[in-house]
């Protein structure tokens, strides 16, 4: 199906299971210190002890809180885990898997450099997939590009390697099928936006020279709430929260997030893993007659 680009149509009119009004995905980029290392690297810099230690707040403190909160509200999340994080923090990633959350691809070293070769990226994927498989017993089906850096060949290699979905694009609020050589392909995109990314509000560093603002939980959650309510009203949209255990994992933030999750459950949110939502979207397209 060609992309809707006629200035009027505001979505694909998908209906969500159980009469839900919106598909909500709680996604966690579990990057630990490699988020900050790769960011500095892409700007030709290195990080100091402070940023290492900030990054390690994820595996040492934030992750546990996130997992306990998800259990408390009885919902599943999707964890995008770089291969090296799965090697360095194997126990933590095993715990994520044991608690029934989805684990998906997010680079090997959280590589965020544009212009690399296809061979290089395939090597990253091979290495990471095998590390993740050791923990989960199956190949990952989901892909999120570190720092949203996609390559011209990414769609092609995701298809070749059996992926079901990607979640890096920012071009709309609905889930859609990727196209390759002018044809729909069985690969779902679950777009996200910087407004629903905790990095926008909570990333702080003296490296770079970034240093950024601090936001209250009220400011952050009220923005997410307005976005959730508006999208739920439209009825055919998705809501992808993009979170980092090292940022959202602070005590008061996890609490505020938990209460927001309770609100979404109560107000028509279908809270599911990316794999569940992508699988549903693919089936819906097939039932509609899209040949993929």
């Amino acid at each position: 199906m060609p992309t809707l680009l006629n200035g009027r149509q505001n979505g694909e009119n998908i209906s969500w299971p159980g009469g839900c009004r919106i598909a909500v995905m709680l996604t966690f980029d579990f990057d630990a210190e490699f988020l900050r290392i790769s960011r500095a690297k892409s700007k030709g810099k290195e990080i100091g002890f402070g940023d290492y230690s900030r990054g390690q707040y994820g595996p040492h403190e934030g992750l546990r809180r996130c997992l306990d909160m998800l259990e408390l509200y009885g919902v599943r999340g999707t964890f995008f885990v770089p291969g090296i994080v799965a090697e360095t923090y194997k126990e933590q990633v095993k715990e994520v898997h044991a608690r029934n959350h989805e684990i998906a691809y997010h680079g090997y070293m959280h590589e965020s450099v544009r212009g690399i070769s296809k061979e290089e990226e395939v090597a990253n994927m091979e290495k990471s997939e095998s590390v993740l498989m050791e923990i989960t017993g199956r190949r990952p089906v989901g892909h999120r590009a570190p720092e949203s850096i996609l390559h011209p060949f990414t769609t092609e290699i995701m298809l070749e390697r059996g992926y079901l979905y990607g979640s890096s694009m920012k071009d709309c609020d609905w889930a859609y099928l990727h196209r390759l050589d002018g044809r729909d392909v069985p690969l779902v995109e679950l777009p996200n936006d910087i407004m629903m990314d905790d990095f926008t509000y909570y990333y702080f560093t003296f490296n770079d020279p970034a240093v950024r603002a601090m936001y209250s939980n009220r400011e952050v959650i009220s923005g997410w709430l307005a976005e959730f309510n508006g999208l739920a009203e439209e009825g055919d949209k998705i809501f992808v929260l993009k979170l980092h255990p090292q940022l959202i994992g602070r005590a008061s933030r996890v609490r505020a997030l938990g209460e927001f999750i309770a609100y979404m459950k109560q107000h028509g949110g279908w809270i599911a893993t990316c794999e569940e939502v992508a699988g549903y979207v693919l089936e819906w397209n097939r039932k509609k007659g899209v040949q993929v």
Partner: protein
Amino acid sequence: MTKWPGSKRIAVMLAFDLDAETMWTTRGDGNLDHITNLSRGVYGPKQGVPRILNMLDVHGIKATFFIPGVVAEKYPQVVREIGRSGHEIGFHGYLHEESSDTTYQEERATMNRCREIFERLTGQRIVGHRAPGGVVHDYSLRLLLEQGYIYSSNWRNKDGPFLHTINGEEAPLVELPKDSIFDDTAYDFYTDSPPERYELKSPLEMTEIWRDEFDALAQEGGMINFVLHPQFMGRVSRVNALSGLIGYMLSNGAWFDTNKAVAEYILKEKGYCV
């Protein structure tokens, strides 16, 4: 203080800069190979415009869309729909050119090229100008007059409107000024790509600032010309916040119309034939 039609207290122009990917290709290192930054630009025509057009219809309000020619060529159906819905289209460069070295000849060629594109797509003749990146040249006013334009929306020195002076003489060219306070990117353009822009404001903070300024300007009989970008402003929380603000403005004496309609009104008031 301007006397507005129908005893309205203030003229409010909703003007959208539909830059799409040119927002990104004209900044930083060009972003030409930054697929997801470009996808943020796509959000404008793909998701933002439908939502905005539907909201404008709810209120029965006509707006102005400043659109680079290349965006119209890439998204012809979107531009046709904007025209078909009764909104005005204004000049905004071909590639969103921001160079201050552009010559008179080059700029004139760009304007002719864009005029043809929009006439072909919508049947509309462009009469208004908002410079990409706010870059105005020393020949710009003269060129606008020669091209048959009746307004510019580039100055930031007054709350407006006023008539421009060319070579010491008043010209039938209305300025409908703008400012960053009414530019959504001052609140919602966040990017981590160089040159970085941090500090994302919530829709509530943004519209609170706009409402306060509206109240005070309405008391003076002023005007507001918005600078809104569908790729950021088109998020549902912001469209809903703007819709609420429009409701407030309507009930507090706002005259909503296009830049063109307001410019024509001013010209008539000053005794020019339109």
